[in-house]
């Protein structure tokens, strides 16, 4: 009976005190099974790890990253240094927050927001015919020029990022999304 309820969340139980209904804790647990929690942890680890890994080279070689950043011709020159300086650290902090599991919604939103920015930058650069290196994981010019495969690679990282929202929604539904009762 309880298993049949999976996927259909009884909203009336969300805010109900657990001690009012016997066995409610068990019922809630079955709606958000342990594998979901583990999958969420794994996703956090992977997404956070990607961001931390991507930031290392940018932090170690800021001048090269600034040049890669400049090549996109998106921001005015005056702003390139500031973004080249801070962006890798945003990636680090978002990565750490995701792995540790604090401010989950905020860090996941920033992850996805940054992925959208990166993908847009790559797509617009390719559409403008810019023959530049991506600067995504390394600013080493020997790595090669970016192409649509680079965009595809970023998309494959963005998809689990979006998927993570559904998981997080099931696991820790924000009160703002909960049903209002008269």
């Amino acid at each position: 009976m309880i298993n049949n309820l999976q996927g259909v969340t009884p909203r009336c139980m969300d805010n109900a005190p657990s001690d009012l209904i016997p066995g409610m804790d068990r019922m809630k647990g079955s709606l958000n099974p342990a594998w979901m929690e583990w999958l969420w942890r794994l996703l956090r680890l992977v997404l956070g790890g990607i961001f931390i890994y991507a930031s290392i080279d940018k932090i170690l070689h800021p001048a090269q990253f600034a040049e890669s950043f400049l090549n996109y011709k998106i921001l005015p020159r005056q702003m390139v240094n500031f973004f080249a300086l801070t962006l890798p650290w945003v990636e680090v902090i978002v990565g750490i927050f995701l792995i540790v599991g604090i401010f989950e919604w905020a860090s996941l939103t920033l992850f996805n927001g940054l992925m959208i920015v990166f993908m847009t930058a790559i797509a617009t650069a390719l559409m403008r015919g810019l023959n530049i290196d991506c600067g995504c994981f390394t600013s080493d010019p020997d790595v090669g020029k970016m192409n649509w495969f680079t965009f595809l690679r970023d998309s494959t990282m963005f998809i689990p990022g979006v998927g993570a929202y559904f998981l997080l929604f099931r696991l820790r539904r924000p009160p703002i999304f909960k049903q209002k009762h008269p």
Partner: protein
Amino acid sequence: MNIGIADGISEMTGDSRAWLRHEVKGLILIGALSLLLAISVNAFRKDRIPWVDHRHTIRAGDVLPYFPVFPAQDPFPRKYLGLPPGQEVVPITSAQADLLVIEVLNVYCFTCQSQALAFNQVSKWIDKRPELKRRIKFVGLAIGNTDEEVDYFRKEYGLKFPVIADVDGHVPQLLGPDLPPPFSVYVRRDPSGKLGPVMATHEGVVEDPQTLFDALVKLLNAESGTTRMSKLFGHDK
């Protein structure tokens, strides 16, 4: 289904407001921590900002920015500049020279053609002097031109120094977006042995090879620092 975002801030429950406040705090914390770390770590760096110069045109006293060149199929630029083999892209500062003269040009600009011919003559004189041959090198960077145009230009004028087409538009980005060709940049080797400090720049053409030659020798023998080329060229007494 009666599920969705609350119908407005005013109708939010206390829990919703607390959750929203918590996540906004998270965003602010991420921003603040990132900024703090970025500024702190930068303070301990040797190569601090600005990495990308805000000024429009490079000038004496600057350090030549990281400047990739793509001497792809043509082995001549590699051989002449002594660039390391095996890499597709190499920084121009890898050139084996004590004084590197960069001429920013466009093959269709008449004054650039005159300047290239003058540099070519000087290059020939330098090649005949073993004490200078390995120390002074020339390189042309052709903005807005293709490899084919540059090849034709070099053959047409019999240039003895390499001219590299700036296909990717690095020159305007790194040396100055409003850079007017012909524009020369004179780069010296610093005391640590690294090619980089810009000793002088010059806008416009100097057609007399002897004046150019004398100026280059003076630059080569000068102590580190900056020099006004117009003074060396006799424009500025």
